[in-house]
């Protein structure tokens, strides 16, 4: 399997997402006027480089899966721009869509629902080959599927079986083999291991890593399991309520998280042997619930739960600030031009004490 048609600059990023917004109408009225909009994704920017794994993390409902679907062009954009392999795919025509359907593939969360129970593994894995007419003869088709089965660590004689004869981990391997069939350049993994047992998770993660090394794949890895993300992803995008709050390399994000939400998220990872010194680096757990994406709070989306929130946060949404090379944070606390304002709007302890006296 080789990348034969990389006609663009190989150093350019594979995927660039800017200002992505995906809003869903809630209960569309009989005559077209929707009652409200769910702002699932509300202004997201990130870049995926060739050969890397970009993690997209956040709690349920933060819009990470919707972002994945938008990149795959399976859900319409409300606003924003997606550039894939040097080509604007925000509003693709039929021919571009057809090409995209080959170059991007998806691995699904549920290994039981993602495979048609009425099809043999041979035809499940070979479906992209059929759809894009990539093989000419039956023998070539079969041989190609055998290669794919071998790649994902399944035996060739499994090709004639049906999905229900396999375990969850094996099914996920079948799903991965199917995603590889059309020789894609980007694979979107939507929580590919969260439905599996921990030991099986490790196997599937190893498989994904091996495939990336051997085939030079690029992954957009949507997940909520921070341990898995830490193991697999090179860079991580943290999302909250449809926005990006922090982007950083894996090491920097886990060692020195900047955004209060990221700190809380990392602080929520259960630790077998808690070290009070380590724990103290992170915020105490955050109270409250995620606000509704139908009516997101004004200003910073995290301010109702943030222990550092000030009037500025309630008023104005923070812009992403580059705190280091490749590490950006959307928080007024880390914006040198705004820190002064924050101190103004929030009386210090000394001031408070003076007022009481």
């Amino acid at each position, binding site marked *: 399997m080789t990348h034969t048609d990389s006609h663009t600059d190989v150093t350019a990023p594979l995927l660039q997402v800017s200002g992505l917004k995906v809003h869903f109408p809630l209960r569309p009225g009989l005559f077209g006027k929707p009652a409200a909009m769910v702002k699932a994704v509300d202004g997201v920017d990130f870049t995926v480089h060739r050969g890397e794994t970009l993690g997209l993390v956040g709690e349920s409902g933060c819009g990470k899966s919707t972002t994945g679907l938008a990149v795959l062009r399976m859900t319409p954009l409300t606003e924003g721009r997606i550039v894939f392999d040097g080509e604007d795919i925000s509003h693709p025509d039929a021919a571009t*869509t057809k090409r995209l*359907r*080959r170059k991007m593939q998806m691995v699904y969360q549920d290994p039981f629902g993602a495979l048609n*129970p009425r099809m043999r593994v041979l035809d499940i894995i070979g479906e992209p080959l059929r*759809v894009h007419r990539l093989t000419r003869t039956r023998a070539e088709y079969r041989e190609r599927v055998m290669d794919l089965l071998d790649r994902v660590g399944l035996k060739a004689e499994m090709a004639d079986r049906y999905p229900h004869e396999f375990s969850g981990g094996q099914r996920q391997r079948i799903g991965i083999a199917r995603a590889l069939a059309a020789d894609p350049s980007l694979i979107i993994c939507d929580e590919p291991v969260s439905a599996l047992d921990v030991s099986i998770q490790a196997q599937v993660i190893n498989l994904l890593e091996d495939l990336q090394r051997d085939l030079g794949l690029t992954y957009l890895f949507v997940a909520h399991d921070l341990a898995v993300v830490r193991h697999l992803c090179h860079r991580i995008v943290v999302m909250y309520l449809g926005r990006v709050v922090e982007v950083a390399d894996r090491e920097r994000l886990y060692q020195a998280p900047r955004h209060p939400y990221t700190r809380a998220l990392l602080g929520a990872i259960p630790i077998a042997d808690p070290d009070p010194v380590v724990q103290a680096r992170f915020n105490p757990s955050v109270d409250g619930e995620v606000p509704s994406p139908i009516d997101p709070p004004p200003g910073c989306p995290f301010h109702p739960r943030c222990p550092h929130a000030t009037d500025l946060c309630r008023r104005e949404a923070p812009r992403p600030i580059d705190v280091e090379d490749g590490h950006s944070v959307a928080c007024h606390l880390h914006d040198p031009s705004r820190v002064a304002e924050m101190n103004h709007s929030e009386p210090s302890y000394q001031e408070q004490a003076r007022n009481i006296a």
Partner: protein
Amino acid sequence: MSLSIQTPAAAAPATPPRRRTRPKTLRFLQRLCKERPLGALGAMICLVLLLTGLFADVIAPEGFNAINPIERLKAPSAEHWLGTDQLGRDVFARIVHGAQLSVIVAFAATTLSIVISALLGILSGYFGGRLDMVIQRLVDGWMCFPDLILLIVAVAVLGPGTWQVILILGLLFGISGSRIIRGAVLSAKQNVYVHAAQSMGASSTRILLKHILPNVMAPLIVLYTTRLAAVILAESGLSFLGLGIPPPEPSWGGMLSLDGRSYMFQAPWLAIAPGIALTVAVFGINMFGDALRDLLDPRMRGGGGRYLARVKRTIGS
């Protein structure tokens, strides 16, 4: 967490042996007999029904319309196996020839109705939106009228006769059945594998044929077998009203309702014989349909051996 578990290495031969060696039909028949004995019985009944229909002239060569006033309303005997009716016609011969007509009408009308149901249901359910809205409102409108009124109007317009009955019954059952298929399609459409097929760029035709249709096969088969029985009954109802198959032609429904009802007490065999024929036919079709539904589902595979084992155990003890 240490993630050093090795992925199992597959030492796969270049050309693996194919698992299937026996021809598909033979394998299917074997499974039918082994896993669903009742289904096999049903299949045999269906086969007998078909053969009776095909070779009616050979089985009852004297014909269904040989009127013999001297022999009228005779009880079953060696000469007339199922007795004779009020015109002295041999009931057995009429049943055999009626099988021909019933089989043609029932299968043709049911097949037509299933094709209509599947077409409307799949289009409406899969594509949704405005098309769904239009189709479903038309179906609503159609279903507002009582079946019998529609039948009477249709026959009044088209005139009585075999093809008219097939057409009108097929349309009637087809349109109401489309609701059931639409529901099944709506639920099948939600499957992740349909999303997967869409995301890899499969055409709607491919998705409908490879992913949706096989997964609504179970309700289709059940609908087919239940509708088959309903069509036979509806045809008898029409014949009773004089709107179905015109009288000299023998149809089971007509025999049951016209002759059977009038002479129920003098000659009960007139009602019993076509009644049993109907019951056996419907039973056979239903059993075969159920077996077909189960055997076509790959998830049910290999489960039937247990049935045989249980039977053997029962016989053994």
